[in-house]
């Protein structure tokens, strides 16, 4: 792996983002809109009910922000690939001395940078409007964050593999794939709320579930659930490896079918 090559590819994405401010807007606009709507809704319900509600706004906002970590990491990988397709640049990259792992590593970095931007903005908005301090999660934030990012990368590789398989017509998968698993990973509700019960087995098999459950535990009890962390990390390792294998397999298949060049010149 060459660091210089990864840097060069990341530089390209940085140029791309600075040259197209609309992309930055997209990075900030949607998450903020979502946060504001969820925030107002919970505030409204809170005012009109009694009981356990004060804590629920904290859960929801925390969940929203952490969900965005997965989504942005996934987008970093999938959209970066699509950028190369859209700009008809894919061939230039694939005939350059760029190893597939270097290409992926660069898209992972882009995912990381996208997360940083979005999280910072969301953290500020949540703090300002709902006095939700993302740092109430304390240092637990870091392992949560890392686990979700890795899950996002894995989903990104799966999205790209699917686009390679079904062509550019399937490019909306780049946005859809994370939502395939969203209902199961207990982002906004506990796993116990998922019915019928056997579906909960699926939930526990997905790494982010452990993160979101762990998040609620920290917020409720202040105790960091190490077992959940290790489950998430272990499952992530398996998911990332599997997703990487699927991606490499699809890329080879695309080369064998002679379709890589079709992508690049359409």
């Amino acid at each position: 792996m060459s660091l210089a090559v990864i840097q060069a590819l990341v530089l390209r994405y940085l140029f791309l983002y600075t040259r197209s401010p609309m992309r930055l807007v997209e990075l900030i606009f949607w998450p903020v809109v979502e946060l504001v709507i969820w925030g107002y809704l919970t505030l409204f319900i809170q005012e009109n009910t009694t009981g356990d509600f004060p804590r629920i706004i904290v859960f929801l906002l925390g969940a929203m922000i952490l969900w965005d970590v997965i989504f942005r990491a996934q987008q970093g990988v999938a959209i970066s690939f699509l950028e190369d397709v859209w700009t008809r640049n894919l061939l230039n990259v694939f005939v350059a001395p760029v190893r597939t792992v270097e290409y992926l590593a660069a898209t992972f970095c882009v995912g990381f940078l996208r997360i940083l931007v979005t999280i910072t903005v969301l953290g500020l908005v949540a703090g300002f409007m709902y006095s939700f301090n993302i740092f109430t999660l304390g240092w637990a934030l870091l392992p949560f964050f890392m686990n979700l990012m890795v899950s996002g990368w894995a989903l990104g590789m799966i999205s790209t593999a699917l686009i390679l398989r079904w062509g550019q017509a399937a490019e909306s998968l780049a946005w859809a794939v994370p939502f395939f698993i969203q209902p199961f990973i207990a982002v906004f509700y506990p796993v116990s709320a998922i019915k019928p019960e056997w579906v909960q087995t699926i939930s526990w098999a997905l790494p982010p579930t452990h993160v979101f459950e762990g998040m609620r535990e920290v917020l409720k009890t202040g105790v960091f659930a190490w077992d959940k962390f290790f489950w998430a990390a272990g499952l992530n390792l398996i998911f990332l490896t599997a997703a990487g294998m699927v991606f490499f397999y699809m890329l080879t298949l695309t080369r064998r079918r002679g379709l890589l060049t079709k992508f690049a010149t359409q």
Partner: protein
Amino acid sequence: MPTPDPREVILEARDLTREFDGVKALDAFNLKLHRGQVLGLLGANGAGKTTAMNCMLGLTLPTSGALFAFGKELQAHRIEILRRANFSSAYTALPANLLVWQNLLVFAKIYRVPKPKERIAELLEMMEISHLHKRVTGQLSAGESTRVNLCKALLNKPELLLLDEPTASLDPDIADKVRKIVLRIRSELNCGILYTSHNMKDIEEVCDHLMFLHKGKVVMEGTPKDIVERSSSSTLEDVFIKIARDGEIVDETTKKEEVAP
């Protein structure tokens, strides 16, 4: 017949076959490209020129056959080979919203070019497009973007250069400039160039050696002059049309039909 070139073979295809859905886009194709040589692949639309080039770049895997560059098997040494090679095509582009220098800088870094800024300035000068340095890549004319693509293709001083229809959609003046540049590159870098085109002027002016493709098969090969003489035609264009229309041509030296339709 010209004496065989004793110089180093930098690219070799052996019995390369590529099928798409049972149809052979490339059929037992053999090629040897020497250092310092410009080899032209000629043929009608769909003859298999781009397929041949894509296989040689490792973008498309051949159905059967073997490929070597600099004496090494292509797939096993892909990265190493690609560092010493480059490619430009009329059908690819550099990211449209980046500035010309940004695009070139990124590729200079990918190819680990020493002193990238100087190299970029030197190439832009050579292409007579220094003034486009700060322009948005997507807003360039066809002629301008072809030359920017060529700059990209020369950043790493390639020993092997693959050009797929570099003069497609260019006006005669710019096409002429591009041809002159290709010749200049060849002599300055002493690289081997594989050149596809269906523009006869290109071929006559630029190529030392020609291979006529028809339905994936090489139907004729030799120097441009040689080919015209052997096929009892008056111009290359005649040869081209004959091959494109019926896929067969009588080689006067051997009196045999080289290919069946």
